[in-house]
Structures are given as structure tokens and as C-alpha cells.
């Protein structure tokens, strides 16, 4: 019987150096897929290889498909079986389906809700499709997995909210300004966090960066990284008139910007919005500043609170997403079960149709009926076929969905496929790839 198997590793159970050993490079993938599908029992395969996880999904005609995949990985990457066993997991059938759905829903990711994984899965599937390594079952499985990933992202807010401080700052800027495209950022002082935030802002199309520092040379050095304008900063704040986003992180012991100073600047810039980010400890910007109209101030604690709240929200959304995955797994499972009997049902219908149309052909030639009568006979024949096959078709699907309905006999394993085999033998149906 065919099994859906996944064997793999992820950041949950394996250190980076093991994941590196197990990973497949872009150029290795096609070759590896070919080697894998050449194995006698492997019917279909897809390999997913990202920096956080390496997984093989396969349809295997064997009692122990997991062992087949583990052996393949061990041989391909020359890893000791014991080490491989320690750092990999293996899931079968429904569990494998659930695992894949969890992965595409980003529930298994390091940061729940991260957007990359869905694209990576699409990419991996497209590659194995191109290599001819997938067929009926994996095609359906991956199409469904990708749609589950999309459903989770549209129906829950699992991907909403920044989960790092610099992204939180960028996100806030986007909530204040319509677009960052024609905006100017001013960095006062220096520091890793302010540079990182500035870099994210530049990536989001901020048009200009001003770097103000007490020492001009330092300003020049930092400005170079952003193609920005260096400024030697003293008590003069007039450059802020041009700045839409201000990131301050000096080690000054007192406030650099207070409320009256900012109110004056806001007037000069015609009250266009200003977003001030105070990363410095002790603070550079007087909290009173946030009372100025159209000026918005966030300090490091505020941003950290935003990130913490977002992470908490994602956890809650993950619970809804888990429910969606559960629902979809159940649906897919029943489809998978009827999937095994469908080719036989189809063959049976085709056989009946074939006999009917042959007999009808010879009969109609002799009988010389009017076209109306001819139509009636044809319709009656169709109706007889339909009614004859209705009950067996229904029963077969029913049994496929609930294998427990059949009692196991001594000489069989009691699975629904015994009916499929009987039908095939009795009616002389041709075997297809997906059943026995």
C-alpha cells in the first residue's frame, strides 16, 4: 500500500551544523530527486531545503517508507545512521499531511507567521514538478498545502505586526505616513539599532538620509553607508525642518529636543507629520514633545512593548490557525481515501459504457427508429447503467472512507483495497498506477 512519508530535520531538534550537512544545494536538488525516484519503491518525491529545515516528502510503496528515506539521506550525505536518527523526525500518512500543513501555515517556523516559508514550499514543489518527481498524490497534497498556507494568512492575523524593534519602527512609520517614498530620515548620534532601523527605512524607499553627529568625520563615515548627507551636529536643530523621521541615539546626558523647540520646527515645516524615535538611554527627546500636534514620539520601551504585544497576538492567532489546519487535514484525509478507489470506479463505469454503446450501435442500425425513438432508447440505456452502478459506487466510497466497516478475515489485512481487487478480478478491469 502507498504511504505518504516525510523525513526531515528543523531548527526545533537539530543544531545548525547538522542542518548544513543535510541540506541540498540548488544544483544538487534535481540530481537528488532523480536518485530518489529511481529507488524501486519510491513513487513520488519532493525535497524542501531551507536554512531552518530540510525535509523529504514522498509517496512510497512499502511497509516502512521512513526507513527508505532515512537510508537515502544517510547514503547521499554520508551521515552515520545513528546521528541521522538523533536529529531527524519521520511522519506517516495523516501525520505527514498535518506536518506539511503546519509548515506551510508557518506554525512550525521559528517566528510563527513568518512569510518566507510559503514561497520556499512553492519553489520546492515547482522544482520537483519540473523534475517529473511528483504525480497524483503529491500534486494534490502540495496544491492543498499551499492553499492552506494562504487560507491561514488571509483568515487569521498570524502574519500581522512586526516582531523586531527596527521593523516595528518601520511599520509605525508606515502607519503615520501614507508612503515613505519622498520622506527624509535624520539620524542623530550613532548606534547599531539606529543604523539598522535606517537601513530598513531605506529599503522601504525613504528618499534621503541625514546623519548628524558631534564629530563630523563620524557623520561622514555613517552617511557613506546610506548615500546620506553628513552634518556636524551642535545645538542648532534647524535640519529637523526637513526631517520626517528622526532617530536619536546620542549619549547626551540631557534632552536634545524639547517641546518648545519642536513646536517651532513643526510650524516651520507647515505641520507635516514627524515621527521621532528615541533609542537613547538616557533619553534624548523630552516626552512632552508627544503633545505637539502631528508629532509622534516612541522610545525604546514603547517599541519593545509593541514587539512583545505582537508576539503575543501571533500566539493567539496560531491557535485559530491550528484549528484551520486540523479541519483541512480531515478534509484531505477523506479525499485521499476515496482517491485510492476512484480509478477502479472510473474503470468500471467506462467498461459498462463501452459495452452499452457497442450493443446500442448494432441494435440501432437494425431497428431503424425515428430520431425521437432513438433518443429515448439512448436515454434509457444511460439510466440503466447509472442505476446499476449507483449502489456499488456508493458502497465502495463509503468503505474507503470508513475501513472499519469491513471485518478483517484471516487471509487479508482487512483493508478496503480487498474490494478493489475483487472488483478488478471479477470484471477484468485494467490495473492503474494509483491502486494496486
Amino acid at each position: 500500500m502507498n504511504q505518504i512519508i516525510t523525513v526531515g530535520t528543523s531548527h526545533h531538534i537539530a543544531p545548525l551544523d547538522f542542518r548544513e550537512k543535510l541540506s541540498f544545494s540548488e544544483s544538487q536538488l534535481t540530481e537528488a530527486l532523480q536518485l530518489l525516484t529511481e529507488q524501486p519503491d519510491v513513487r513520488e518525491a519532493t525535497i524542501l531545503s531551507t536554512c531552518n529545515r530540510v525535509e523529504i516528502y514522498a509517496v512510497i510503496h512499502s511497509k516502512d517508507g521512513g526507513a527508505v528515506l532515512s537510508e537515502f539521506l544517510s547514503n547521499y550525505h554520508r551521515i552515520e545512521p545513528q546521528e541521522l536518527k538523533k536529529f531527524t523526525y519521520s511522519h506517516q500518512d495523516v501525520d505527514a499531511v498535518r506536518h506539511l500543513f503546519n509548515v506551510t501555515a508557518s506554525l512550525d517556523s521559528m517566528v510563527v507567521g513568518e512569510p518566507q516559508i510559503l514561497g520556499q514550499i512553492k519553489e520546492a514543489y515547482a522544482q520537483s514538478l519540473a523534475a517529473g518527481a511528483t504525480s497524483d498524490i503529491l500534486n494534490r497534497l502540495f496544491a492543498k498545502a499551499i492553499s492552506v498556507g494562504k487560507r491561514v494568512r488571509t483568515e487569521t492575523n498570524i502574519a500581522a505586526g512586526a516582531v523586531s524593534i527596527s521593523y516595528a519602527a518601520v511599520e509605525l512609520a508606515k502607519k503615520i505616513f501614507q508612503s515613505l517614498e519622498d520622506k527624509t530620515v535624520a539620524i542623530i548620534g550613532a548606534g547599531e539599532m539606529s543604523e539598522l532601523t535606517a537601513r530598513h527605512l531605506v529599503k522601504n524607499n525613504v528618499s534621503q538620509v541625514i546623519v548628524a553627529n558631534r564629530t563630523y568625520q563620524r557623520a561622514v563615515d555613517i552617511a557613506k553607508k546610506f548615500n546620506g548627507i553628513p552634518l556636524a551636529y551642535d545645538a542648532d536643530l534647524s535640519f529637523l525642518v526637513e526631517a520626517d523621521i528622526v532617530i536619536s541615539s546620542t549619549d547626551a546626558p540631557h534632552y536634545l529636543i524639547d517641546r518648545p523647540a519642536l513646536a517651532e520646527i513643526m510650524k516651520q515645516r507647515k505641520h507635516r507629520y514627524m515621527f521621532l524615535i528615541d533609542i537613547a538611554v538616557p533619553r534624548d527627546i523630552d516626552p512632552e514633545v508627544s503633545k505637539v500636534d502631528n508629532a509622534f514620539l516612541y522610545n525604546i520601551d514603547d517599541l519593545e512593548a509593541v514587539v512583545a504585544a505582537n508576539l503575543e497576538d501571533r500566539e493567539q492567532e496560531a491557535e485559530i490557525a491550528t484549528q484551520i489546519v486540523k479541519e483541512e487535514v480531515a478534509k484531505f484525509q477523506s479525499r485521499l481515501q476515496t482517491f485510492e478507489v476512484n480509478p477502479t470506479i472510473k474503470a468500471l463505469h467506462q467498461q459498462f459504457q463501452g459495452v452499452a454503446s457497442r450493443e446500442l450501435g448494432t441494435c440501432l442500425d437494425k431497428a431503424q427508429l425515428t430520431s425521437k425513438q432513438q433518443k429515448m432508447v439512448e436515454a434509457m440505456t444511460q439510466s440503466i447503467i447509472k442505476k446499476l452502478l449507483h449502489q456499488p459506487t456508493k458502497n465502495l466510497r463509503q468503505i474507503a472512507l470508513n475501513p472499519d466497516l469491513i471485518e478483517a478475515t484471516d487471509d487479508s489485512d482487512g483493508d478496503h483495497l480487498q474490494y478493489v481487487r475483487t472488483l478488478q478480478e471479477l470484471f477484468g478491469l485494467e490495473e492503474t498506477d494509483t491502486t494496486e
Partner: protein
Amino acid sequence: MNSLFFHTLLLVYLAGCILHILFLSTGNQRVAKYGYWVTIGGFVLHSAFILLRWQHAGHLMAHWYDSTSFLAWAIILIYLCIAHLTHLRTIGVFVVPAAFIATLVAYTLQTQENTAIPAYLQNYWLIAHSAVIFLSYAAFVAAFGFGLMYLIEERKIREKQHTLIYNLLPALGRSDELGHKCILVGVILMTMGILIGALWTQYVKEVKWTWVDSKVIFTIATWLVYVLQLSIRQVFGWRGRKTAYSAIIGLAAVLFTYVGVNLFLPSIHAF
């Protein structure tokens, strides 16, 4: 027939309101989509209703309730235009209920037959004059919606509460910009409406232009509120909270001009 139409329309708009509000409280994009399509359905139904009334009563604005119903229709029209142009569904949360309330008011007014508009006024001048004025009201309702959205979002940003609503509402700059555009469109339409009204008095003998009519006075006052706001924005860069407040004050003036004058003050426009 009227009642059946009204009942169905009220139900459809109510469903539209509920779906929009549900969207804002759950963030489910699918619900937003349903709300949008239900509102479109309501709009189609409403358009059919207005055309039937027109045919039946022989006039688009035969009755006070016709005008209120038209206002509701215009609000939905403006909403659908905005939603189509900007893909913004959150504004629906604020304006679809306004349309629902207007429809409800129209339904209640339907029973008061004495508010019919005098026959001598019923001509194409009236249609042009009132349709344009009501479209401007609808634009002001949308501006009011953007004003509310701005104020809520600003409050969330200042209080550092990054809740679901914070995530769903558009950026401050966007609400402000769109609200400003709605006011601009509203002022242009209102100016046209006033001019059409003035021309009407020049060409038709039965209607005399008068400055002392209370509706005229309050309409001019409302117009001034918006024009003043636009000018200050242009010269001093007023934006954000001040624009939002003026959109709210402006709508209060509109409401008084439309409802208050009809109820409390004598006027040739008293219907």
C-alpha cells in the same frame, strides 16, 4: 410595493453594516469582501427603487423621503467609488451605517404625506439642484468618516495601543489626504448646487431668489466652514487632527442645514 422595497433595502443595508463592523472587529478579509458585495447589492436594489419611484411619482424628488432616500443612495455611491479607487474597505464601517440611518429616516418619513414637494417646483431644475447638493452631502459624510478614522488611529498611535483596529485602519497621512479630497469634491459639488439654485430663480418666475431664506443662510454658512478649512490648510498647512475636527463640525452644519432647518425654521426649502 414601497414598503416591501424599503424593508428589503433596510435588511440588505443592515447586513452590510453588520458585515463591515464584523470586519473591523475580527480583521477577517473575507468578511470585508462579503460586506462590500452585499453593499453593492443594496446599491443596485436602491437604484432600481429610485427609478421605479421616479416613474411612479413622475418625479425624482416628489417627496421629502425621496430626497432622504436619494441621500442614502448617494452615500453608498461615494463609498463604492472610494472603495473601488483605493481598495479601502474600512471607510465602509463609518459610512454604510450612515446610509442605513438615512434609509431608515426615509422609511419613517414615507408615512407623512404632508411633506410632499409642491408641484410647481417639480421640474428638472429641482432634480439638478437637489441631486448635486445631496451628492455634496454624501461627500461630506465620507469626509466625516475619514475624520473619525484619523482620530481613532491617531489615538491608538499616541497611546501606543497597537490593537487590531490600529492594524486595519489606514495610515494617518492616507485618512487625512482622502478626507481632504472628499471635502474638496464636496465643496465643488455644493458650489455647483448653489449656483444651479440661483440660476433657477433667474429663469423661472414662480421661484424668487431670496437671501433671507433660512436654508440659504445655513447652506452658505456650511459652505463657508468647508471653504475656510480648505484655505487654512492651503496657507498654514493645517492637517491631521484639525482637518478631522473640521470634517466633523462641517457635517454637523450639514445636518442642521438639512434636518434642523426643515423642522424648526420657516423656509421655501422646508421639505
